[in-house]
């Protein structure tokens, strides 16, 4: 019967390789406006970007249950300029609310690629970080940043509305400093992401070029 395969303690080489593999992919490639080089215009635009975050309405996992609570009267995320957008074209932020099944991952990638730059990804919950309690599930991916660039992780299962808002505030801070928005980096590292994505999505039927 199902015998649990142990990974064991990783060797130093494995750790090194893992550090390379899991190094944040989007460090400098897509940074058109670092804090140092940020001009006056970009500064003002970043102020607007920071205070106007449209969230694409896609509840990908069970963390979506705290989104209504965050958006409604007690926590009221709209006072930060956060509001829902019905379609990916209009949205800036994508919330990955928890685990992603392989079937959803395919849709999520499509939705992400349809969003317009600069775009941000906030990942919710332990299961988006390292698989959480679904680490041995055959249908959920374990490390989201292999497949999509992630700006902010919110830990917890599930994150409370306070921590969701804290995550948004953190994202605002990153936007202000010009450290958020990995759309261009995603484009420049597309081969790496595509390789990982295609490993999970067996029947690959995406457009060849990322030009939409």
């Amino acid at each position, binding site marked *: 019967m*199902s015998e*649990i395969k142990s990974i064991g303690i990783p060797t130093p080489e494995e750790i090194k390789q893992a550090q390379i593999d899991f190094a944040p992919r989007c460090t400098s490639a897509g940074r058109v406006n670092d804090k140092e080089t940020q001009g006056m215009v970009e500064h003002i635009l970043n102020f607007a970007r920071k205070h106007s975050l449209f969230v694409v309405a*896609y509840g990908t996992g069970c963390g979506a249950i*705290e989104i*209504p609570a965050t958006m*409604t009267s*007690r926590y009221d995320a709209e006072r930060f300029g956060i509001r829902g957008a019905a379609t990916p074209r209009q949205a800036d932020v994508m919330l990955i609310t928890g685990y992603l099944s392989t079937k959803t991952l395919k849709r999520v990638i499509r939705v992400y690629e349809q969003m317009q730059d600069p775009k941000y990804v906030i990942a919710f919950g332990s299961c988006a970080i390292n698989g959480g309690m679904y680490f*041995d*599930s055959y249908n959920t991916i374990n490390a989201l940043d292999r497949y999509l660039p992630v700006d902010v992780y919110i830990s917890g299962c*599930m994150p409370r509305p306070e921590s969701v808002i804290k995550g948004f505030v953190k994202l605002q801070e990153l936007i202000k400093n010009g450290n958020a928005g990995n759309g261009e980096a995603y484009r420049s590292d597309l081969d790496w992401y595509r390789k990982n994505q295609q490993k999970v999505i067996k029947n690959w039927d995406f457009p060849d070029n990322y030009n939409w």
Partner: protein
Amino acid sequence: MIREKETTLYIGPQHPGITGNMMIKLKVAGDTVVKAETHVGYLHRAFEKLIENRNWLQSFTLLCRFCVPEPDPMELTFARAVEELEGRKVPERAKYIRTIVSELARIQSFLLWYGGQSGSSGLYTVGQWSVGDRNYILDLFEDLTGARIYHMYMWPGGVRRDLPKGWIDKAYRTMDYLEGRLETYNQLLFDNAIFQKRAQGVGIIPKDKAIEWGVVGAPLRGTGIKHDVRIDEPYEAYDKIDFVVPTFEGGDVWARAMVRREEIKQSIHIVRQALDHLPGGSYYNRIPNPMKWTVPAGEAWVKTESVRGEVGFYVASDGSNKPRRVHLKGAAYTHGVSVLEKILPGENIADVSFILNSLGVCPPEIER
């Protein structure tokens, strides 16, 4: 008659009108749905597979995530199934606490439903109020169990901990507050001429077919058939509590809404009664060391009433420290697939999301 050209319209998975993460593929002619097909699997986490690799107590962390809007009936049902397999007794106080918690879970789920039903018809104000007020119930849960959504509170043999100090008063106060607020919601939603116009005669489930189609819960009671697990097979303290199971004729969205409108009042009534008659004594029959804990071989089929309808667990044990098979039957399994595919043809596209909300389709319950 000239047939209009049929087009294919995908509602979901990324769509504001969908409840959760699923997809409905519609064939539409003009504004009318000709054929509907449900596609699920976007939330499949293989719970039933994973539980086979966890021991009995570890399963509870996974179990409550079966259905996100209302996790407590899942715990309760599984705990009852394990108790039935083991023949374990539950103290009287635990029974009452379980009744209170499952009714509170119903109330918070009803409040979320208010949000969904009114939001899908464009009346966001009620949703904002009710989902905001839902936090008061979640506060009660937090005081009691430490978590807002996933509690893992009801274990085999009783509940995890006793009611904290002052909790009962707080629960009474919350019930009083909610009862007052409900009047406001109902005035705005149910007395609204446009809502009545939208809801009446839409998404009709025929009365004579309802049971055969596998309809359960509020949608079944909305066709005028009185069926509730809490009365048919009383569990916990429901046989000692006096409550009414409301029914409404019609089988449409309006009837289901009216049933829920009464049910939330009944739930508040039950919570008050259970708090009034809360017995003293122990709240927990201890289980052995969970790592060594084995459950005798056998099978159990246990049902519980949730907001969407009955929740059933088929649990098979082979006498080891892990479940052999845990199979959930949620109400959405039939409502979301076969019933939805039957009632959607002939409806307007505008009503798809409306009907979806009134059936309480919860995709994680379908695919697990």
